[in-house]
């Protein structure tokens, strides 16, 4: 192992599937507080909760978005990833987002919480033999052919660019005497789209504007890789112009994703 690991020598996978990531960031946070005694002395630093890890990554979309990244779905289970040869088994996805801009490749940003012991000290470069046999992806999502429908967004004109995100909170629950959660639930599931357009029609009402859109992600050869749907409320509008630029209108469409209870 070299003293410094370089990007091109680091492998990043979800499960056994290789992802073409251009950035991976991993961190861990312990929640501690000092314990001070009535004689003024410091007893120790007490843990307030588990060590919570954070992993964020950006990768090119080379096919359909993997199902475990369906943030607004009901599946709460953990994902396994490996980074620089170290397995991280307790990854819980909590947000996915991407931007679509003309002629730009579409990069997926994903954020995860993680729990459990990860042997970070074992980071290592991948072997040359593995590196040399990496497959080149057949498809890469691009803004060139990707689009979103606007027929159900009142007043929306030509879409210049848009961002899509799915987010949720992931509260963790622990049994006594345990440091790792028995459940990491999903709360407050939301999907959002922000758009930039030449116009947005009338000013929104106090209850916003109902908005519905389908987003289709394609590669440069028009192969459909995935679709996303949002049915929510347009809740903010803004207009901006700067020297030498066109007037651009921005809007945010937000959908709270409910989950109907199953009768038991």
């Amino acid at each position, binding site marked *: 192992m070299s003293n410094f690991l370089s990007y091109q020598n680091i492998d990043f996978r979800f499960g056994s599937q290789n992802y073409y990531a251009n950035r991976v960031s991993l961190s861990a946070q312990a929640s501690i*507080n000092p*314990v*001070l*005694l*009535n*004689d*003024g*002395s410091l*007893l*120790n630093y*007490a*843990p*307030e*909760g*588990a060590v919570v890890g954070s992993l964020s990554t950006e990768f090119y979309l080379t096919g359909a978005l993997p199902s475990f990244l369906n943030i607004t779905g009901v599946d709460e289970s953990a994902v396994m990833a490996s980074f620089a040869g170290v397995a991280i088994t307790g990854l819980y996805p909590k947000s996915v987002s991407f931007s679509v801009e003309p002629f730009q490749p579409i990069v997926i940003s994903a954020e995860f919480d993680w729990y459990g012991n990860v042997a970070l000290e074992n980071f290592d470069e991948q072997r040359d033999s593995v590196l040399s046999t990496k497959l080149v992806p057949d498809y890469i999502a691009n803004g060139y052919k990707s689009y979103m429908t606007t027929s159900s967004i009142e007043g929306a004109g030509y879409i210049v660019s848009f961002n899509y995100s799915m987010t949720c909170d992931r*509260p*963790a*629950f*622990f*049994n*006594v*005497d*345990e*440091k790792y*959660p*028995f*459940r990491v*639930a999903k*709360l*407050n599931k939301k999907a959002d789209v922000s758009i930039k357009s030449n116009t947005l029609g009338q000013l929104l009402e106090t209850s916003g504007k109902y908005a519905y859109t389908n987003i289709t992600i394609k590669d440069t050869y028009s192969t459909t890789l995935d679709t996303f749907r949002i049915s929510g409320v347009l809740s903010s509008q803004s207009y901006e112009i700067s020297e030498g630029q066109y007037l651009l209108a921005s809007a945010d469409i937000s959908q709270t994703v*409910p*989950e*109907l*209870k*199953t*009768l*038991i």
Partner: protein
Amino acid sequence: MSSIISGLNIKNIYEYDSTLSYNKFDVVDYELVTGISVYPSYTGLGNSGLIAWFNNDYLEDFNTDGSFNITGWKNKVVGSGDLIQLSSDANVRPDIQFDQNYITLKDLEFLSGTGFDYTNRTFFLAVDVIEPEKKVEQKIIKFGTDVSLGSLKINGNNTESSASVLLDADSFYAVSPIYNHKNIFTIIQNSTASTLTIRQNGFNIGQAASYDSQWNSNYFELGNNPKNSGIKYYDLFYFSGILSETEIDYYEKYLFEKYFSDYEGLFFAKKNVPVGEAYSPITYTGKNYWTRDIDDLFKLSYGSSVNFSAKLSPLTMGDGYRTNTANNVNTLNATFDLNYDGLTDAQSKCLIAYFENTPEAPEKSLYEGFKGVDINLFTPYKLNAEVYFKTINHNSSYNNLNKITISAESLFDSSLDYKGMFVVLDEKNIKTYNSYVDYLLTNDVFYFNSDSYAERGYYFYTGANINPPSSSTGPSSKIYIAPNNSPTGINSWFTKDFYFKGDLEYEVNENIRLLSNDMKNSTIEYSKDGINYNLLEFNVGFKKRITQEARAILKFLDDKAGFKTFKYTLPQPYNKIIDVYCPEWNHTYNFENNHDISVKFIEFKNPFNAISVFNTNITLVE
């Protein structure tokens, strides 16, 4: 469906159906047979062949000698033979059990009779065999005088694929536990077809390979199992002829409803349950899938807490002096708030049903009401504690996300138990003192045994860690604690005092005890109330303490039982050592190695000069 369902606020709980599969946390209402039960002597359904019937409904069912030993068990069928014991040898005469609905035949005790010869019959029997130390064949019933033929026996360990039911020489694996467990055995004796079939709790478990004529004998015997621990006979009866499957179900249901109410009611799936009769809650296999043990289903969450308060009758005697009388041997009342967080809807349904069903537990005795819930409490409290669920708070903050807090009360923990009421001497975390130990950790607690009352008790190690256990390797050698450093040594490493330091942040409020003379419409005159008029009553906090220290603090308080006094050094600027007792405290388990403890200390002025002490070791013998 049993009547208990009406007491629940949870819908969609159905009778157990072996043709269905179930998911973990499903709840079922179990009955042996879901049809009707029929009294053996009822003839309305056309059964008139009842030949023999013995049970312990009334005292007049027995003939006894002057010592209330049974000399005869009367056949409830008029004109049929009784089971008798005419021997003058008291060793073979069973005792009558006035307060039970069974008789126990143990060791050489037996009852026998003649006139029981039938070639075709259907025999029903409800028994509970007490588990013997040495597993040998035990006869449940026997026809004829042959040593081994004509008998129903059991043998083996009380485990699946070992516990066996024997018809003569043919052995069949039992489907339900055979020891310390009530069982209904049904024998279908068909000499015409030369078949002998055995059912256990409604399950057909086997048919004998051959039919021996001993089963046709007129001699019938119960008991006579040398050196066994006893067999409890609840009820036995038989009909002439072969009853239909439906009729057999009627009478098995009668026995089940009358004697086995413990096994009826709600069961909870601790794993996914496949389809099949073998997975019924009362079978060996089913016990791996169904439970009534809450620890099989749920684990407590952080945030669980407990409040202790001593039930005392204080007697104030002026000048700040008082005495505290403990009202009974269960001085401390403990109310645990058991926290179950992050539950799915299915889990919360299961837990709420469990909570609501707790009053359906069997009676502990005639005088103690129903049995509480056996549960493993949280660190550092004891395992397998018996508590009563009192209140429940259910909060659902989001779809399929629930938090349930159950308030549970402990009733049976006595301050006379030197091992402790709640933080117990378990020889694991708190050990009996030995001069050789593997390691010593700050705040280790030891019980020091001594003939001297003053020296005996719990001691706390206040030094630095020595030879602490590592996760990878154990201690290489034992530590020797020299007599001088022992709990009672002159340079002791241990203390019996309250040496724990409270939090930096604290509050002390004082009230001066005064006499006042209210001169109406004029003024109030204050005068001092004797001496000791500045007695303190204050709270001390110990927040975010590691488990090791929390265990030591809680053991100290547990040992003081809410009324025993001890020395406490007041913090800056008081810095005075006073006598206090601690009638109330609470503890919250926040996270691993993070415990909050808050205690209430009351200053106590009477000097401790015990005139006599309770210095007798009491051993309970059942």
